[in-house]
């Protein structure tokens, strides 16, 4: 029934809730996605991200909460009336239809005239770079090509919203990297509001405008990728995003004292939720500095002695496992040049620059 391209809409979730039998899969999820934004739901298996996606699509009924597309509430609409483009993990291309027929399916459901359909299908084939393959059957295409057909099919009818459920997990690593960027480019070109579900954080960080980190049915943190990486707000986020070294400590007079290390680190205020001002000091592997000698004079951040326990060459970077005195094993990551001639067994001094703290909620 649309005559022109639909303007992208916002999506608002209010207190969304889903129970399966006795267990709660999604608990009080509240989120707003701006028009044209690409938001990723990220989290480990079972965190509720796919369940949330399916409720937005209307494929799963909710136990509580509301869903709005733009300013209209859509809860009461069944899946086939929500005007949502859905891309499945296994693509779900109709095997008995050609690529063109697959792409045109949504248009057929909306009773578009033949000519208009043909034009639109051609547009999409060129958008996903599959020109000339319109008459093939899905079984004749490679995995990557099938995925692009699935995307084209979901975009064909100018949906209010595009939802992708782990669309890259069936592709091999090299292809995944390429397709990731392709999808982001397509999204930027079409400016569709998009929600993406994945358990792969690299994907999430590369593609999203914002990342919604979920854990056991609740939202842990919502932030732009950079912010999420540099400033995780919960222990779960700190552990889940990127590699991290977490040191137990407490905030004392505006600085952090780490158990086992003399001296206090930086200037921090006590985060919300910290019990007895106890915190984790989060040190990213790339933020561990190596020093050959103990410091001269006092330094803003304490340095600690450490022994090199293991060195793993990764190509452009090197992983160095350190046995840090008083603390235990920490993992550092440095570019090969900066590591120099360090060998296993060497004693060095390490410092932690740019560390971040999160609340420690258990003793």
């Amino acid at each position: 029934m649309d005559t022109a391209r639909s303007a992208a809409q916002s999506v608002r979730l209010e207190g969304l809730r889903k129970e399966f039998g006795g267990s709660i899969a999604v608990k009080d999820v509240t989120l707003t996605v701006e028009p044209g934004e690409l938001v990723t739901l990220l989290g480990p298996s079972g965190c509720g991200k796919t369940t949330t996606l399916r409720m937005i699509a209307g494929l799963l009924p909710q136990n509580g909460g509301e869903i709005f597309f733009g300013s209209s509430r859509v809860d009461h609409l069944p899946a086939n009336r929500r005007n949502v483009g859905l891309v499945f993990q296994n693509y779900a291309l109709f095997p008995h239809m050609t690529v063109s027929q697959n792409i045109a399916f949504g248009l057929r459901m909306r009773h578009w005239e033949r000519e208009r359909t043909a034009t639109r299908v051609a547009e999409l084939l060129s958008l996903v770079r599959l020109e000339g393959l319109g008459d093939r059957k899905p079984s004749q295409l490679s995995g990557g090509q099938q995925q692009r057909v699935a995307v084209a099919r979901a975009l064909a009818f100018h949906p209010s919203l595009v939802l992708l459920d782990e669309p890259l997990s069936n592709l091999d690593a090299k292809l995944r990297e390429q397709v990731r960027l392709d999808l982001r480019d397509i999204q930027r070109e079409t400016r569709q509001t998009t929600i993406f579900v994945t358990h792969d954080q690299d994907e999430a960080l590369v593609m999203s405008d914002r990342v919604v980190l979920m854990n056991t049915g609740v939202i842990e943190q919502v932030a732009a990728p950079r912010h999420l990486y540099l400033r995780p707000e919960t222990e779960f986020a700190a552990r889940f995003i990127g590699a991290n070294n977490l040191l137990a400590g407490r905030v004392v007079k505006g600085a952090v004292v780490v158990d086992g290390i003399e001296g206090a680190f930086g200037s921090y205020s006590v985060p919300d939720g910290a019990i007895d001002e106890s915190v984790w000091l989060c040190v990213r592997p790339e933020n561990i500095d190596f020093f050959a000698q103990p410091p001269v004079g006092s330094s803003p951040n304490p340095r600690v002695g450490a022994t090199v326990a293991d060195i793993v060459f990764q190509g452009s970077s090197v992983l160095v496992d350190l046995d840090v005195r008083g603390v235990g094993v920490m993992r550092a990551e440095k570019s090969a040049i900066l590591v120099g001639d360090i060998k296993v067994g060497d004693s060095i001094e390490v410092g932690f620059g740019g560390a971040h703290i999160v609340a420690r909620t258990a003793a």
Partner: protein
Amino acid sequence: MVSSKAAGGEPSAARRLLVSGITAQLPGSPGRRERTASEISSWRRSRERLFFRLLTLPAVLIALFVAIIPLGMLVFRSFLDRTGAATFANYAQSFTNPLFMRTLVTTILMAVTVTVLSTALAYPVAYVMARHTRLRNVLMPAVTIPRMLPFVVIGYAVILLLAPFTGLLNKLFMAMGIIKEPLFILFDWPGLLIAFGYSGLVIATGMLTGVLMSVDPQLEEAAVGLGASRLVAFFKVTLPLTIPGVIASGGIVFTSVVTAYSIPVMLSGRVPFMIAPIIAVTLQSLGDFNLAFAQAVIVTILSLGGTLGAQFVLDRYGRT
């Protein structure tokens, strides 16, 4: 806009109630009363369930009419006598009828023999067919087409083979000098055995092929790799895994022989061996429906019971 908890808490229940109250009461107000999400989804769900239930309705009605109701009536009426009064007489009469009981025994004997024989004969064939795809495609017609033939064909064939003077077998044996006089086995139990054996073989081969195909051949190969000979691997790995399927197949064969009607009638002599024609006579010649129903119930319990009993026994044996 980011929040893990809506600022200021959720829209209060009071506010929601107020809104819904107003919209419900205002005359001619557009839009429906605000529903909660779970109300909407359960309403949608129950409508969906109704839709699916309606789709299954014709099937359920047909099944009721063709099977449940007639069988129910059969069992019910087996407990009535000619005047309609409740009684066990039909059963008592059957169990004390020497002809009925004797025939029952010979029927069971025949069925057990046929089941064991046809399963044993079919098993190696099924094994070969399951393991060798090319051979299977060649042999498939031989196994499948006989199942598409009416039993009369088998009856004809057996008669053509075993007839005393004109039958192929007798002519062959006499020509070869094996026997001096023709064998009169056609209308006696050997003829029956051969006919049932054939049909049992056909059924068993078809079913056992499926059973053996479901056993992963790699299991046998693993056993051989661990040092077993092919034969031992078969007996210790494959065979035990096929036992449930063998029982199922045996049950089908057993039931088909116990309740067989056409072949016994076609090939019968003066002494009845099989029980089904006797029930038919009770039904059609004597017209005593209720008695026939009781006999039918007895036979059903026997045939289904045989299968269940075998399953039970082998379950316990398998556990040791």
